[in-house]
């Protein structure tokens, strides 16, 4: 589905700009008209255009001057210069001044069609590049959160990701704060057929209702005080990709109704707008709240819940997959050491035990923060108990913390259970051979229950 191009036609001749605009609209594009450079620039202050068709010969500001100003103030808008037959020099000048292309008046219809297709492709490319840059920028911040885990709980999550990625259905991700819900959403997006489209995330809990409304739906100029420029909402931005609504349990009932309507008939209006827009996105929601409880309390709509919860993925808290704590900690040590240009410090046994037995109220995010700080304050290539600063009171020495051997036994027991005590499969998951596993089972006295 190609989204229409937003085109601005700038020509001082009324018949010309009217007929070009009418033709564009019949072709399924969106067209606005301006009779001169000043009017064009004023319109461009109000909304974004993908493409400007600019007549080169106009009284006042001529087409080349307007082209220069557009390239200065709106570098993302493509400009095509319209020029008369026989004025090759002006076409050359336009191309040198940054025009994407030129058209000789009257245009050859086949040429016009090819040019519009080309502009559509160029715009898509530009959007993809923007998205890629954004993803890279976010990746540098979020790189720490690569999902790591070999616990049966996480293996189940990975399986579910693969399963839902193959579908287009809405997914609800539930899990505690910091457990990595957004990572799961990104992983679903990246494995889906929409991976080449945008991944657009928004935290619904972080803003007021009116702000969230205009963030999601966009707004027209003058829709409210401060709306000096029309803006695309996240729904529009997610066209062709995935929309991720984080903390969906925080949104008001009014917004739930509005979103439900979008999900049901696929179209929506910008705030203050009259023209229905459509966007083709896959919806993924996440929450740390218990939505069925909110529904029972009358705070969340059941119909909306059914819509967003076609599939659900539950991300386990870190304390329920303690065997992943050390691999995660070591991963973060490696990442932050590289950032700081340090040799990765080693985790002392005391530190390991403390990490394993801690309650992790802030989940993986808290572990990441603790390890980032530990790498910075470590010296002598070692991270000990002194370098760890826990959010809650840390475990006291000599507490009931499990030993590493106990942890290993617990881990093996869970893997065996997950594989129904199939030794071959369990050994493969654990990354050891069958004989070694057999020995460990015997030594720990494990048996199927």
């Amino acid at each position, binding site marked *: 589905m190609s989204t229409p191009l937003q085109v601005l036609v700038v020509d001082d001749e009324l018949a010309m700009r009217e007929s070009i605009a*009418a*033709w564009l*609209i*019949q*072709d*399924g594009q969106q067209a606005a008209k301006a009779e001169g450079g000043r009017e064009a620039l004023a319109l461009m202050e109000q909304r974004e255009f993908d493409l400007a068709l600019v007549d080169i010969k106009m009284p006042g500001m001529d087409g080349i001057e307007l082209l220069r100003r557009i390239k200065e103030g709106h570098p993302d808008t493509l400009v095509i210069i319209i020029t008369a037959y026989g004025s090759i020099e002006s076409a050359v000048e336009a191309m040198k001044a940054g025009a994407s292309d030129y058209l000789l008046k*009257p*245009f050859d219809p086949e040429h016009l069609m090819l040019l519009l297709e080309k502009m559509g492709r160029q715009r898509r490319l530009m959007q993809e590049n923007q998205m890629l840059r954004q993803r890279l920028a976010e990746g540098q911040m979020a790189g720490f959160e690569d999902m790591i885990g070999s616990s049966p709980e996480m293996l189940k999550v990975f399986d579910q990701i693969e399963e839902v990625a193959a579908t287009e259905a809405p997914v609800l991700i539930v899990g505690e704060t910091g457990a990595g819900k957004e990572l799961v959403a990104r992983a679903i997006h990246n494995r889906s057929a929409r991976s080449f489209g945008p991944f657009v995330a928004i935290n619904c809990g972080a803003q007021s209702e009116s702000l969230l409304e205009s963030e999601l739906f966009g707004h027209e100029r003058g829709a409210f005080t401060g709306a000096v420029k029309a803006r695309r909402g996240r729904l529009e931005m997610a066209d062709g990709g995935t929309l991720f609504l984080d903390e969906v349990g925080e949104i008001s009932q009014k917004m739930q109704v509005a979103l439900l309507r979008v999900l049901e008939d696929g179209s929506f209006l910008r705030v203050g707008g009259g023209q229905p827009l459509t966007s083709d996105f896959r919806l993924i929601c996440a929450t740390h709240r218990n939505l069925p409880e909110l529904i029972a309390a009358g705070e969340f709509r059941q119909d909306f819940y059914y819509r967003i919860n076609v599939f659900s993925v539950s991300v386990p808290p870190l304390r329920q997959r303690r065997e992943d704590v050390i691999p995660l900690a070591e991963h973060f040590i490696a990442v932050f050491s590289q950032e700081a240009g340090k040799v990765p410090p080693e985790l002392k046994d005391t530190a390991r035990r403390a990490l394993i037995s801690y309650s992790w109220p802030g989940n993986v995010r808290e572990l990441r923060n603790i390890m980032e700080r530990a790498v910075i304050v470590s010296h002598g290539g070692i991270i000990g108990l002194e370098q760890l600063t826990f959010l809650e009171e840390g475990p006291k020495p000599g507490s009931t913390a499990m030993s590493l051997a106990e942890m290993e036994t617990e881990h093996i027991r869970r893997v065996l259970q997950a594989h129904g005590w199939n030794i071959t499969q369990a050994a493969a998951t654990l990354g050891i051979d069958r004989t070694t596993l057999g020995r460990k089972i015997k030594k720990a006295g494990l048996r199927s229950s």
Partner: protein
Amino acid sequence: MTAGGAPSPQVEVVPLGRVNSTAAQVVAANLQALLELDAMVVGPWPEPAQALVPARGQYDAGIILQDLATPQGGALRLGILGKDLCVPFLTYVLGESQLGGRAAVMSLHRLSEGEGGGRAPRHLMLERAAKVGLHEIAHVMGLEHCRTAGCLMRFSAGLATLDRLNMGFCPACRRDLIHLKIQLIVKAPAR
């Protein structure tokens, strides 16, 4: 896409000056068959001299449309011209229409062109005429261009692209046409 007992919207196919009458009949028959419109060829109008652009030796489609446009509620009109059509910003057009309006116009002038400058066989010319007529009347009903390969609502600037189109609409356009036709019937005054 029958609308039960409701009357089909009417389309008058209007020859403008001397026009191949078989082509006009074929266009009307295809509007009947594919769009289930009540289409008929009416008596010819004089050649639209007021629309001639002397410098270009072509007829301005916009001016012809203004003359053809009927008052709201009457029949839709499709003018057929033997001469070449243009609009101010395009070197030529095969047809032109008011989107969601009352009138369309098409030209037979280029439809007889064959490969390598020869003449196209008669059946090909008639097929092209039917395609252009269906495309333009669908515009008048309110349908925009479609990007689906082969769909009759794809924009075809030249004959090569026109010849690659199917003699019919894609499923999405067919669905839209049903809704647009219902709207036309609702808007029309009782006869």
